[in-house]
């Protein structure tokens, strides 16, 4: 684990008097797919948002390729400037629960925007790259559609294309199927499976246990802002050690039946 791409150490985050993350340690190796599960309020979404500094963390450290994300150095207490953060975020893709597509841009322009502005790619090249990724997620015939003209599953696939077109080192996926109708979940997860097969490093929050089992390399169970259990998917999901995890898994199963 010494060559972890993402290294999270003693990460702590408070919102007022509430401690949302309470000393989290987590490594993600290159090419690894780590699935984070846990009840709502367990801190899993906040963990993801700390990794690309969408929320500032109070103490501890988050490093990608050895570079501290939120602060100028581990423990320096000096937040990075917006410009420095932007440069770091360019290498960290994120897919959101509510898609967050840009409603005024077509599918193609949603994907091309970061390529053109952040990566400084010429317009034609960005367009080709955007079309490549949209085709890859099965939307070759939807390039000129606005988000409002797409189904939820299609919108989320654009969201994935927008993130991976930047060729990030790490992809964060925050409950990306939670807002979808059940029959649309499969098409989105298939895209994620394909990315995993290609070796994309992913940190993913999800309630899709069957996906965690067959696509995840490691499962992390969070409870009250801490990592309560972690290990290979079959171990964690098949032989839960704590009552809390057993109860959580039972609730999830009841819901998905």
């Amino acid at each position, binding site marked *: 684990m010494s060559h972890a791409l993402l290294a999270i150490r003693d990460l702590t985050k408070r919102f007022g008097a509430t401690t949302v993350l309470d000393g989290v340690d987590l490594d993600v190796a290159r090419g690894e797919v780590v699935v984070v599960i846990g009840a709502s309020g367990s801190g899993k979404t906040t963990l993801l948002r700390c990794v690309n500094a*969408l929320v500032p963390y109070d103490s501890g450290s988050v490093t990608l390729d050895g570079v501290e994300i939120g602060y100028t150095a581990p423990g320096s207490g000096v937040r990075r400037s917006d*410009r420095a953060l932007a440069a770091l*975020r360019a290498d960290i893709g994120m897919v959101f629960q509510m898609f967050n597509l840009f409603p005024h841009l077509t599918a193609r322009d949603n994907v091309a925007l970061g390529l053109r502005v952040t990566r400084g790619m010429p317009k034609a090249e960005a367009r080709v790259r955007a079309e490549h990724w949209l085709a890859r997620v099965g939307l070759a015939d939807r390039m000129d559609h606005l988000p409002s003209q797409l189904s939820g599953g299609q919108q989320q696939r654009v969201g994935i294309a927008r993130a991976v077109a930047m060729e990030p080192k790490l992809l964060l996926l925050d409950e990306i199927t939670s807002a979808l109708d059940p029959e649309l979940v499969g098409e989105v997860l298939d895209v994620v499976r394909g990315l995993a097969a290609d070796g994309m490093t992913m940190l993913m929050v999800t309630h899709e246990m069957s996906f965690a089992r067959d696509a995840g390399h490691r499962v992390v169970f969070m409870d009250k802002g801490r990592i309560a259990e972690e290990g290979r998917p079959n171990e964690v999901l098949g032989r839960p050690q704590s009552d809390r995890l057993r109860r959580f898994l039972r609730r999830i199963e009841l819901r998905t039946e």
Partner: protein
Amino acid sequence: MIYALPFLGEGFLVTLAVSGLVVAGSLGLGLVLGTALAFGPRWLGLPIRAFADTARAIPLIVLIFTVYYGLPALGANLPPFWAAVAALTLFKTGHVIEIVRGAVGSIAPGQMEAAKAIGLTFVARLRYVIFPQAVRRFLPPWINSVTDSVKGSALVSLVGVVDLMLAIQQVIGRTYQPMPLYLLGAAIYIAVNATLSVASRRLEARFARVVAA
């Protein structure tokens, strides 16, 4: 009355100049301050809020006289034209700050986050993601405030700037024919603002098509 038309024309140009300067100045200042109010830190937001509330709470005519008589006391001796433009701009900026804050504030926070996630800097996030969506909400109240500026510019006549309003009054002073001249003045103001209204409806329709959300 015909011989007075060139004189009235000059006044009309002054009215257009005052309105144009006030609209441009308040738009620039209001965009920066309104955006800072919406996205900036608290220490920056509090004075901006205080300024916007104060500027809007003072009757325009009080503001004009305060700037006109107050600036010389502070050692800044502005000609009446510029003192009046400054006062109107302060007043209008208060409104534009509110309009900008409301418009960008109506954009879902997820838009800013998604823009951050693809590595856009703050200015790029505004330019490519926030403003293009906010402009639809911004235009209707802003055009209203532009027509307000044109009407409000008539108050500069009170500090001796010969705009359309004062030109009309001076002509009346010589001809003793108030009604035809005031009607002519009203017609000119209506023509300007009606043109603005039509242009704004075209603009709104265009943006509504672009952002078919």
